[in-house]
Every structure is written in C-alpha cells, then in structure tokens.
C-alpha cells in the first residue's frame, strides 16, 4: 500500500549509505541525506561529481548498489513497477536539457502530465496550465512550438511542466543554467515560493552558489565520489574546510582537482595509440 501524502515532518526523500555507479565505475559512495517537506535542498559539486546520478537514484531510474533510497516512506529497492509509478506521480523533475516533447507546443507540454493523470475539464486544464505558464512568464508563449522558443524559455517551460501537478517533491537538475539574470532571479524565487506555499520539498542540483545559497535551507556538497560537507548556507559559508572554501570561492589551488583522474582505461588507451605520456 502507498503511504498517504506527507503531512508530518517525516523526510520526503532519504538516502542512507548509498553507493551509485555505472558498470565497473562507482560514481558516489556512502551518501546519506534527507529532505523534509517544505525544504529547499541545494546539491552542489563540480562537473562530473555525480549530482545527476544522485537525482537518477531519487527517481528510481538508477538502483543503489549499497544503502537504501527511501521516497515518501517507501524503500525504492522494494518498489515494483506500479508502486514506482504511484510514487513518481507525487514528484516533479526538471531535466538538465528540459526534455520538452518536440511534437507538442508549449501549452500541450505543460498540459501533458495533467492529461495523463487527471481528468480535468478543458477549462480547468487551460486555467491550470496558463497559471503555471504565467508563473514562469510565458503565458503569451503558450501557442508557440518548442522549436520556436529559446533554450532559456524551454527550461522555463520545463519548470512549469515539472510543477504543474503541484507535487510533494520537485527535483531540479541545473534549473539556472542558460538563464539570463532576470529569469534566474525569478526562477530562484519561484522555487522558494513553491516550497513555502505548497509545502513541497525541492532538491536543486546547481553550480550557482549565489542563487542557491539565497533560497536553500540545506546545502550538500559532493565531490571526489563522496559527500564532502553539508549544512545551512550560513554554516557552510563559515566552514574552514579547505574543500568547501575552494569550491565556494572558485580558487584554482586546493584539494578540488581540476584534472580528470587518470584511470586504467585511459592508460590502456594511451598504450594502444602509442602516444608518449
């Protein structure tokens, strides 16, 4: 049986000692975190640090190798397909590339989850879609094809689609990428307002320190395959940890390696090509 929507302060999403990877490669080890209703949690880390992998684990697209991922009180390792479908109906996801349906226009993209999951009248559906499009400033773009809008606009449409069902948990993968400063500020406030107004939990995967620190309740910093630090924006900003300081201030020197690590696969490739090291 599915647990009822969260009314209490029980975590919406909880990861305990989770390890994740693809094939022989382990991306993240021993990750533990929890997201409470109404909280905005920022997940930060360098490129390739495994932030998106973490999101895939939260949606059930990737199964944890070790540890448990609990979504709305259900252990995802034990969730069958119908259970997973039920849990996913209670969450919204903003994909890194937007992932809009190119055969549908802007309105139909936002209306898609409503048409699939709710039985609304045409008027109710139209009102709800236009309300969400208004929130991202694209009400008057409802009739446009996806090919006619810019990359930044596409991300805002994707944002409207992610929240149109007013889910209990929204996962945002790089919501600020490619946005101009005005859209960026509005989007950040929108994420915060959704959490405050609807009590939905938000997990924001981002590189944007200023905006995410302004709206987040908790910040998690991942790097080198593990969780490096976590805390409120204030405590993290004051942390003496050299890793945290280098990441937050963008210093070139420090414990965060800029170079991609040398792997046995790279060495084998180098030996095959005959290029001198």
């Amino acid at each position: 049986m599915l647990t009822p929507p969260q009314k209490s302060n029980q975590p919406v999403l909880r990861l305990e000692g989770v390890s994740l990877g693809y094939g022989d490669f382990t991306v993240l080890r021993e990750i533990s975190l929890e997201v409470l209703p109404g909280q905005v949690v920022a997940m930060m880390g360098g490129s390739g640090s495994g932030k998106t992998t973490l999101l895939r684990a939260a949606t059930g697209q990737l199964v944890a190798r070790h540890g448990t991922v609990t979504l709305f009180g259900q252990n995802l390792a034990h969730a069958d397909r119908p259970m997973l479908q039920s849990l996913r109906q209670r969450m919204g996801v903003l994909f890194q590339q937007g992932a809009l349906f190119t055969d549908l226009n802007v309105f139909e993209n936002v209306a898609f989850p409503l048409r699939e999951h709710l039985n609304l009248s045409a008027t109710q559906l139209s009102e709800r879609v236009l309300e969400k499009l208004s929130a991202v400033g694209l009400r008057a773009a409802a009739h446009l094809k996806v090919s006619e809008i810019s990359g930044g606009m596409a991300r805002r449409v994707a944002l409207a689609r992610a929240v149109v069902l007013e889910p209990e948990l929204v996962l945002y993968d790089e919501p600020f990428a490619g946005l101009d400063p005005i859209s960026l500020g509005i989007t950040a406030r929108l994420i915060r307002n959704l959490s405050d107004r609807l009590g939905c939990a938000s997990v924001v995967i981002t590189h944007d320190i200023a905006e995410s620190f302004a709206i987040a309740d908790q910040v998690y910093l991942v790097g080198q395959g593990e969780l490096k630090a976590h805390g409120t924006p204030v405590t993290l900003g004051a942390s003496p940890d050299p890793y945290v300081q280098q990441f937050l201030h963008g210093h070139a020197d420090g414990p965060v390696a800029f170079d991609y690590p040398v792997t046995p696969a790279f060495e084998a490739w180098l030996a095959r090509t005959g290029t001198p090291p």
Partner: protein
Amino acid sequence: MSQLKFLTLLGKSVRLRLTGLGLFTRFFLMLLQRSGIVLKRPRLVSQQVHFIGNFSLLIIIVSGLFVGFVLGLQGYYTLNRYGSEEALGLLVALSLTRELGPVITALLFAGRAGTSLTAEIGLMKAGEQLAAMEVMAVDPIRRVFVPRFWGGVIAMPVLAAVFSMVGIIGGWVVGVLLIGIDTGAFWSQMQNGVDLYKDILNGVIKSIIFGIAVTLIALYEGWQASPTPEGVARATTRTVVTGSLAVLGLDFLLTALMFSN
C-alpha cells in the same frame, strides 16, 4: 591461438544476435501486453494512422501509378504474342493484389514512414523525452510506442489497397486509353478472374503482416538507437535494410503458404 580468438569472436557474435532476438521478442510482447490504451484512447491511434498514412500516401500513389503503367505495357507485349490481350486487366489486378501491392507498399513504407518512426523515437531518446515521460509516471511503451505500432499496422493495408487501386487505373490508362484494348473486356476479365478470398483477402493478410513486421522493426531500432546523431543515423539505415529484407523473406513464406495447392 588464432583459432581460439576466432571461436571467441564467433561465440560473442552469436550471443549478441541471440540477445538481440530475445530483446526484439520481448519488445513485441510488451507492445501487445500494453495495447489496452488503443481501446481506452483510440484518438492516439487514429492520429498515428493519419500521420503515418500521410507520410507515405504521395509516394504510394505515384509509385502505384507508374507500376500500373509498366504492368500495362509489359503485360500487353507478352499477352499480345498469344492473342489474349483482353486478359490484361486480369493480369494487372492479380499482380497487384497478390504481390506487388503489399510488397512494394511495404518496401516504400519502410523507406518513408519506417525511417521517420525510427528517427523520431531515436531523437526522443537522445533528448531525454522518453526518460522524462518515465519519471512523470507515464509509461513510454504504452503512450508512445503502442499507438505508433497499431497506427502502422492499420495504415499498411489501407496504403496497399490505394497502391493496387491506383496501379489498376495505371494499367487501364495504358491498356485501354493508349493501346486501345476493349474497356469491357479489360474490366470483365478482371471481375471474373479475381477471387475475393484467394486473391484480395490474402493480399490484405500479407499487408497486415508486413505492417506488423516493418513498424515493429522501425520502433525497435529507434528504441535501441544510441542517443547520438550517428546512432540515430545508423538505426534509420538498419530500419530500411532489416525491414526490406524481412518483407521479402516473409513474402516468399506467405506466398508459399497461401497460393500452393
């Protein structure tokens, strides 16, 4: 050592092909299992019939007309030797309804609508659209693949019928209007010689089976495509090659089963 390497490569190749066959069968069974949406939301299927039919309609009409012209000419040259050119209508109709209609339509369908389906699905995969659907708790097999599959299966016999009809008109234009065969003989020989069940129904059954094969291959190739421009291009090519070979192979088998004594 080289023999061992050869055997290893052979084993790997056989294993990969068997895995592919297993995946293909599983994909087909998944489509059938989740076909309930066809009854719940028939509009999704009718939209696909419309799109897929429109993709191929022009090329089917033009090809059908020219095939009819050629059949009319070649048929006349051959029948004229035996003084039985009145049988031209029968020859054209039988050739089209039994063989050329279903087969050429399926080959054109693979090249036109099949490639479109593969490219569309492949690009949806590359653009994370299928993954987005999945995390929205919408099953992409049920919502995207099943309507396209049944759309293709329904569109194929309709297109084959259009092809045969236009081809017969092409044969009539050449035989009756240009060469001057008696129009009454052309149509009456056709009416007497073409059997509703043995010829027309078997042709329809053939085109339905070709529709299943080509649409299934097109969707499977899109589903399995690497999410890159090169991967989608390769998948599109595989749809045409595999789809065409499947049609020709199946045609031989079906002809042997349907028209043997």
